[in-house]
């Protein structure tokens, strides 16, 4: 079993800071005073009242942003690994 790689603390990585900031904003968008603007019945989307659709979109955003960040991290780790291999 591999020793897990030590992750860089979020403070060092500007992309991580941006992702963390996104989640703070997402949280803010789901509560007062932002959500009340969107917690209406109309317009109806995919049969749902807008108040529900809005929260579901928040959930999907949460998934896609972290998924994108995860793929980016993996790509960067692979690139780092290749660079280390070449310099050895």
């Amino acid at each position, binding site marked *: *079993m*591999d*020793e*897990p*790689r*030590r*992750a860089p*603390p*979020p*403070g*060092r990585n500007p992309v*991580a800071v941006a992702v*963390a900031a996104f*989640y703070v904003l*997402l*949280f803010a968008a*789901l*509560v*007062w*005073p932002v*959500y*009340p603007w*969107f*917690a*209406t*019945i109309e317009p*109806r989307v995919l*049969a*749902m*009242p807008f*108040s*529900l659709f809005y*929260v*579901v979109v*928040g*959930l*999907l*955003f*949460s*998934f896609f942003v*972290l*998924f994108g960040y*995860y793929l980016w*991290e993996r790509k960067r780790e692979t690139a780092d690994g290749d660079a280390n291999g070449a310099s050895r």
Partner: protein
Amino acid sequence: MPAWLIVFLVTIGYLLASLAIGLASGRHASDSTEGYVAGDRSLNFLVLYFIMGASVFSAFAFLGGPGWAYSRGAAAFYILAYASVGLVPWYFFGPRVAALGRRFGYVTQAELFAHRFDSRAIPAILAVLSIFAFVPYLVIQMKGAGYVFNVVTEGRVPQWAGSAIAYGVVLVYVFRSGVLGVGWTNTFQGMFMMVLAWGLGLYLPAKLHGGVGPMFDAIAAGLPDMLRGPGLGADGQPWSWGAYSSSVAISAFGFSVWPHYFMKIYTARDVDTLKRTVVYYPTFALFLVPILFIGFSGVLAFPGVEPADAILPTIVTSALIGLPPVIVGLFCAGALAASMSTGDALLHAAGSVAVRDFWGNLRPGALDDAAQRRWIRLMVILVGAASYGLALIPGLSLVELLLLSYGFIAQLFPLTVVTFLWRGVTRAGALWGLVTGGAIAFFLDLALRLDLVSAAATAGVHPGIYGMVGNVIVMIAVSRHTARLAPAHVVEFVNR
């Protein structure tokens, strides 16, 4: 064969399958405390995903979710809101927690804080409060299981027997297989619940209203306040935005630090497994949407169901719907799966926390590894029996106790953040911040219940949020005036 008997047999079939999976899964674990509590740190993505996913699908979500949608409308969306951000902090601190756990041998949450702050008081306090938080949570799951059994067998299986049958099975596989039993049964139970949630969530609106769209049309025309945020309060009047928002906040902050979930970080095979679990988590939370549809489908078709949590079993067993008994049986099994997949993790964590964090702190080194494992198993039985005893007391209101414990658990969030991000926090700062936050949450809650403080004075905001503010202020103030921990020690946790 009478319908109730078919339902009963399908349910028993599900229980036997859970038992077989639970017993078989423990065979590969090592004979050690690390094997029993942290699964030898070897869990793969599939199992970890379902352990965390099943956490959302507790008896509360399966029965309470439709109940909230049915009686309080849009207020129920708060569950979706907190589920969309609640686990994200794990992505950032989880890999550090897992790496430290592997290096220093932690298997519980409190062991991390004990080491970070070089404190015996913090883990002991956490252990006591965790057990206090777990028991009402567990009792609710047990009551839910007994209740479902009772309703679908038309009262032939009394509630006490239903709880005993379901939790007898849980006790056997948790006792025998530890966290691996929890993990693999949750995988089975989770898949089961997913299929059932979507099946019923789309079928019932179609059957009762001709589809999800016509269902919401009818509610919008008759009871528009139900679909506008923030929905209705428990009294049927429009809820306040302060209460809605702080419910999202307190649940979101608490979610990533509940001790029985937090300790699952140590079970991950590697960092990638842990990260993928967090990434895919919202895909599981999406299954709450059809669960809410079920509740909404009953608003106009089944008015006046009391208590509101009974709406799902009421609809499923109603002659109006005419579901075949096998499907009703599968529903019953799904509701039991929701209860059991949460209850098993709680039981397992309660035993581990009581022995490792409480006893291990009072008498360090008193128990060797084999003795620890024996005591954890014994505690699993004792906590299970005590909770079952409480579940038999009629009319005991535990939901309030649970909400109170949420207020306390959320106090662990600031502590977790400073553990990894702030070198300057001291042992006294961490301890007094925690104590202050917990005390504010507790006493403000009490004052609100006794009408010593009006809800208007707090803007409807959850007492735990005020606790968190007090927690952070005291933590910073005390840390500025007390002795710092050795930098060489702190750098193990905060390396920037």
